[in-house]
C-alpha cells in the first residue's frame, strides 16, 4: 500500500484529572480510510481517551489534528458509537439512522438516500418504521453504527460497540462492520478490550499501557480478508498482543 498522508494526527495528547494522569503524551497517526484498533488493560482510560479525542472532554495538553486542522465537532464530522445504546427512543429506526445527518444539516433528499442505502447494507430496512423499544439489543447497536457511518465521518470512534453482545452476534456484526467500512471507506478508531476482535477487524493495533496511559506498541495486521480465527498468523498476532497487555 502506498504511503498516504495522515488524516488524523494526535500529538502528545495528555489528560489529567487533578493529580491523576490518565493519558500521558499519546501520539499517533491514522491514514485516511484506515481502521485502527486500540486495546489496553482494563481501566487504562480507553473511554477517557475517546472522550478526549471526540472533544467531549477538553484535553489537558496536546493536539488533535484532522487534515492538519485542530479537530472541532462543529467543523469536522466526528462520529462516536458509544458503549451504551444511544438510540433516541422517540425516533423510528429510520429517523435514528438519519439523525446524525440531520444535526449536520444534510439536505433532506440526500439524507433519505443515504439512510436507505445504509439501512439496506446492514439489514435494517425491514424495521425502518419501528421504534427502538420494538427491536432487539443487537439491532439497536446496529442503528448506532449506521447512524455513525451515515454522516460520512472524518473520524469514526467506536467504544467497545459490541462488548455487551453474545459471541455469535458479535462475529456477525464484526463482519457487517467490515462490510460497511470497505464500502464507505471511513477512517475508524475501534476501541475494545477483546484482543481477538481487534486482530479480526484492524489494519493496525495500538496497544496502550496501564495508567498513566501511553502507546506501548504498534502492531500492523497485514492479514488477508476475510480473516480466520484459526489461521496460524492470526493466532500469532493475537498471542503477541496478549503478551503486551497481560498484567498477570
Amino acid at each position, binding site marked *: 500500500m502506498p504511503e498516504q498522508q495522515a488524516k488524523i494526527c494526535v500529538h502528545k495528547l495528555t489528560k489529567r484529572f487533578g493529580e491523576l494522569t490518565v493519558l500521558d503524551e499519546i501520539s499517533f497517526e491514522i491514514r485516511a480510510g484506515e481502521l485502527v484498533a486500540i486495546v489496553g488493560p482494563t481501566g487504562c482510560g480507553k473511554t477517557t481517551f475517546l472522550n478526549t479525542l471526540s472533544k467531549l472532554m477538553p484535553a489537558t495538553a496536546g493536539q488533535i489534528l484532522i487534515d492538519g486542522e485542530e479537530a472541532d465537532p462543529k467543523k469536522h464530522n466526528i462520529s462516536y458509537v458509544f458503549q451504551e445504546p444511544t438510540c433516541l427512543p422517540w425516533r423510528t429506526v429510520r429517523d435514528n439512522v438519519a439523525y*446524525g445527518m440531520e444535526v449536520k444539516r444534510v439536505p433532506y433528499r440526500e439524507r433519505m438516500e443515504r439512510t436507505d442505502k445504509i439501512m439496506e447494507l446492514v439489514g435494517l430496512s425491514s424495521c425502518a418504521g419501528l421504534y427502538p*423499544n420494538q427491536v432487539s439489543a443487537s439491532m439497536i447497536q446496529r442503528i448506532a453504527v449506521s447512524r455513525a457511518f451515515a454522516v460520512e465521518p472524518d473520524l469514526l470512534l467506536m467504544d467497545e460497540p459490541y462488548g455487551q453482545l453474545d459471541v455469535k452476534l458479535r462475529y456477525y456484526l464484526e463482519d457487517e462492520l467490515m462490510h460497511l467500512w470497505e464500502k464507505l471507506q471511513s477512517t475508524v478508531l475501534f476501541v475494545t478490550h477483546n484482543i481477538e476482535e481487534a486482530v479480526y477487524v484492524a489494519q493496525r493495533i495500538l496497544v496502550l499501557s496501564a495508567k498513566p496511559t501511553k502507546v506501548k506498541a504498534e502492531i500492523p495486521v497485514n492479514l488477508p480478508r476475510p480473516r480466520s480465527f484459526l489461521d496460524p498468523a492470526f493466532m500469532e498476532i493475537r498471542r503477541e498482543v496478549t503478551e503486551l497487555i497481560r498484567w498477570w
Partner: protein
Amino acid sequence: MSRAIANETVGISGGREGFSFYRCITNTWFLYCVSLSVFFLVWDRVAAWRIFGDSLAQPLVVLDKLYELTQIRFAGTNLGGHIWASTRRVLIGFSLASAIAVPLGLCMALNRYTNAVVKPVFDLFKPMPPIAWVSISILWFGVGEFSKIFIIAIGTFVPCLLNSYNGVRLVEPELYDVIRVLGGKRKDEIIEVCFPASFPAIFAGLQISLSVAWTCLLAAELMNARDGMGFLIKRGMDTYQPALVLGGMILIALMAWLSSLAITLIERRLCPWKTGIENL
C-alpha cells in the same frame, strides 16, 4: 438477510390451547366479572337488609336517582348541567395551571438562574396540601367561580411543575453526548433531546395533577357551591338522600376516570414510542 431480521424483531405470539372447564374459570375476564358481580351483590344485600339503616341505597336505586335527575331540574339545572359545571371548573383550572407550570418546570431545569429564583419559593409552597387553600381563597375571592378555579389551579400546579422539571433532569446524559459529538448546538440538544425525553414525565405529571384537580374541585364544591357534582353530594347529605350522595360520588369517579383516559389517549398519540409499564 430478511430471516435474520425476523429472528430479531419482537412479534406478537399467542399459544392456542383447547377448551377446558379449568381454563374457563381461570380466565381473567371471567374473574373480572365474578369480582364485580360479587361486589354489587354484597352492596345490594347490605342495603336491602338495612345493615346501615337508611343510609345506604341499593345500586339500582342510585341508578334510578341519577336517571331521575336527568329528567328534572334540580337546583336550577339537570344532571348534565351539574356535570358540566364541575368539569368546566376542572378544565379551566387544570389548563391554566399546566399551561404555566409545564413551561416553567422546563425553564427551571434548563436554566439555573430561573431555577435559583423560582425554586426557593416553590419549595416553600410545595408541601402545603392544596385543600388548605380552600378557606383563604373564599376569604379572598368569595364563593364564586373564581375561588374554586383558584384552588384547582393551585393543586394542579405543583405536580405539573415537579414532573416537567424532573423529566428534563433525568434525561440520559449519553443522548446529549451523541448530539455534542456531532457538533450540535444547545438548541438542537433542547429540541431534539430534552423535550421529547421529558414528554413521558410531563404526562405522568398531568395525570397526577388531574386527579388532584378533581379532589380540589370536590373540596371546593363541598364548602360552597350552587351547582356541580360536589353540590349534589352536599345536598344529598343535608337532605338525607344516600342515593344522591352515592350518585354524586359515582359521577365524580366516572368523570375523573374519563378525563384521565383522555390524557392517556393523547399521550399515546404523541409518544407512540413510550415503553409502557404494566399495571401502573
